[in-house]
């Protein structure tokens, strides 16, 4: 459901730009924040709200990889595997998560608790390996720490 509140936020964001259509990325973020992902219907709504052709909205929404086009779990584990994290053992952590939750990268657990997303560098290379769970940042990870942290997400 795209609530009144989201619509208000999007309307507000329009004011930041000389051209309304530039609020599209904010609009997509707002909707994704509440819905968890961007359905075709949502894209269509954004098209109407900002007077942008639907296909154009889709082109934008699919260019950026943090917009999601399938329903996601309640918590999104976004783990970095780029070079600094990789050499510090990120691959092992990914394997662990796959094993523990029985999902592949991009997948979601049956109970919708977790989705696993592989990230490029998230700017924590000095304290690698690192991950974002939803909007929370966690670094200096090891196998134990990862599981402890994830236990806190229901």
């Amino acid at each position, binding site marked *: 459901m795209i609530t009144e509140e989201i619509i208000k936020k999007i309307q507000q964001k329009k004011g930041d730009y000389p051209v309304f259509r530039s609020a599209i990325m904010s609009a997509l973020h707002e909707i994704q924040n509440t819905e968890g992902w961007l359905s*075709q219907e949502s*894209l*269509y709504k954004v098209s109407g709200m900002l*007077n942008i*052709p*639907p*296909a*154009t*909205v*889709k*082109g934008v929404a*699919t*260019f950026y*990889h943090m917009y999601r086009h399938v329903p996601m779990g309640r918590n999104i584990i976004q783990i970095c595997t780029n070079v600094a994290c990789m050499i510090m053992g990120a691959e092992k952590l990914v394997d662990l998560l796959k094993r523990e939750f029985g999902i592949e990268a991009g997948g979601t657990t049956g109970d919708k608790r977790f989705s696993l997303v592989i990230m490029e560098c998230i700017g924590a290379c000095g304290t690698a390996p690192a991950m974002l769970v939803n909007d929370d940042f966690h670094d200096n990870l090891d196998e134990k720490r990862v599981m402890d942290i994830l236990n806190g997400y229901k």
Partner: protein
Amino acid sequence: MITVTINDREIKFDKAVTILEAARSGGIKIPTLCFFEGLEKFGGCRLCLVEVEKLPRLQTACTVMVTDGMVVRTETDAIIRARKAMLEFLLINHPLDCPYCDKSGECELQDLVAQYGAEEGRFAEGKRRHPESFDDPIIVRNMERCVTCTRCVRMCDGVQRASAITVTGRGDHSFVEPFSGGRYDCEYCGNCLTVCPVGAIMSRLHRHSYRAWFVEDEIETLCGFCGVGCSMILQMRENTILRAIPRMGMGINKGLLCARGRFGYDIIESNRRLTTPLVRKNGELKAVSWAEALGLVAEKFSEIKEQDGGEKFAGIVSPELTNEDNYVFQRFFRETLFSNNIDSIIRMFYAPAQAYFEGIFGQGITANLISGIGKSDAVVVAGGDPTKINPVLGLQVRAASGNGAKVVSLSNAAGLKRFASSEPVARSGSENFLYSALLKALIDTRGLPGRSGSIEQEIGNIKWPNDEEITQRTGLRKSDIEKVAEDLKDPKNISVIIGPDIMINNGLMGLFLIAAIIYVLDARIYLLSERPNEQGVIDTGCMPDTLPGGRPLEISSFREKFEQEMGYGVPGQKGLTLFEMFEAIGKGDIKAAYVMGDNPVFNLPAADRIREAMSGLDFLVVQDAFLSETAKMADVVLPAALWAEKDGTYVNLERRIQRLHRAKKSVGGLEGWQIIAGISGLMGSRMEYNSARDIWEEITRASHLYGSVSYEDLATDKSLWPYKGEPLRSGKWEIKIPEEVVEKTGHGCHVYPDRLLFHSGSFSRYSPALNSIQAEPYAVMHPDTAKSIDIKDGDRIKIAAANGWSIELVSKVDNEIRDFSVRVPNVFEGVCVMSLVDYGIEPGTGAPVWKLSDIKIEKVQ
């Protein structure tokens, strides 16, 4: 002056051009792939890399501008290696299914590889997979073949401006898709097909039946679906059309087409075409020989002419036929039957509107180049959606908007959504209130130009409606109108585009107000034209009151001079207009009618009455390519050739005379003039024509307007208005407030014809391709309208008029219908919306003005 050295050759330019243009002008070839003339620069494929002295990297010739003293090399070893490398990159993910691909033989990638070669088989992994999409009736997408040049997207975004497709994803997962990911649901102009260099976006119509080398002949001709007059090429093999394509830069459409032009050609090959003449025997139409059919017509016509005289005939010509057909028809009527009862469907809008504006502003006032619209700084649209009625002209309106022009849409123009700077749409039937409010507001912002005292005096006499009245009638706020006046305050180069709804809705009063607006704006006028040769009908004298060339026949000096020069007589009294003829038929004052290429019992308002009247005729001859509703009532049906089967000329809405070229033999029909000349000969007046050219030469003698435009001139500037024939009539520069013929009352739903993008007239329904896009009519209405009568989108509904007539169809709820009318296309068999409407006749012009009979809509279970 800029001097560039390319491959040791000096070339000079007086303005900056790209290296590519510079090279091409010097005859030096540089391979390209993503570059396409007329599309926004891109620079992505990297095939056109060249060396420029002093610059460290290779440069893309298609984007880099030349500068004075620049030294360029296009064929060094490094460049050739780079080109090979780019081709190799393109091939690693490209399926090598050339034998199976319809593009084979005209694929730019294939050609480039043939020229430069590419390393083979160094790519060991599997290619990118993406299943071919068959979700669409018309277009097949094969994204495995896509080279991501984005030509299609740039075409759809930047030229067609439909923005129906996009690149989705990124990197090596970039694919071109419509919003749905499957069906396009777009304008189906097919212009993306034209630009795709490979077999990634292809027409489905000739899937696996077309190969570039099958083409035996290519005929350049015109599209017959509207008054823009787009040029296209028919590719032929064994007397069948393989496909219709535009050619970049060719014709006024410069390589663009709309769905009708590109895909609708298949009506020519329709299996519902009439192939032999039919004659009614014992109440049933029976196939007969040409000799029998023509003999019967000649005999009957002679009989009626002898007994009752020429006034007993009604002749209906067609703006779908050529000048040559129509000219010969009027000659036959005047000379052989001695009747001036000649008219056509252009009586509904084009003819009266043009006569009206010419009377005020001078002859030829509507003859303006379509390309001028895109260069305007403001465009005003009233009475129709140009992007549907004349789609390629509509692109110019969008282009104007893209260039920063203010676009004001005063009518329901869904195709201009996103392009209009203001869109005040009045409730159906109340447009005149909007026009007069706008006129007033414009006088306030721009002032009166002072060019004509008499026009300004008459404007002073207008009884202006007050603000409340305007709001109450139109549903628009004062600020809506002020916004428009503000938009139109400063522009200097304005185009006003007028569509058919203005006449049917608002009659002469609407034209009067628009004329006053045009006067205040000092604007150019464009009349939308639904059929390919509306102007030609006027020019060839297929009017009850004018001779070929447009002179009034009742002025005896004109008539006598004409008779002398042409050697045939013309009755001295003007004939009946279209609707007068039907009234006369109804009263029994007319006994026989010849309908050439039209379908009045379906196409004209109060179609039910017209049908009833026609059934009382003693003798009805219908010449058509299909067994239309009207043809079904005929005593004799004569099969006709369609435009791809004909030579001759059309005059488009810019008054440009253009030539058709016969691409194939007709399946059985004859050209209009051949049939008419045949009948005339049998009636004792021989017409000696061997070809369309012979007739053209006679027309130029008959019409001083066309002056000396020879048949050869027809592809040149000489066929552009003014043709430098006789001096043009100047306008009177005065207007009179007309009387309102039809009082507009009632606030219920009003039903109007919806003018579609995918169909035109009542014969595009025979095109399987166009039907695959839209096969069914629907009644479009605004959500508020739908709510008020408790109808939901997709409901099956029955629309009934006061006259007892009704139609059944599916509803479509769409907030683009902003004037609260209900719109039904008058195209499809069995759904004749024209039966539901009634009209009053505007006495000055003989044009019909819609009566707003309230209709009843209910859901059918």
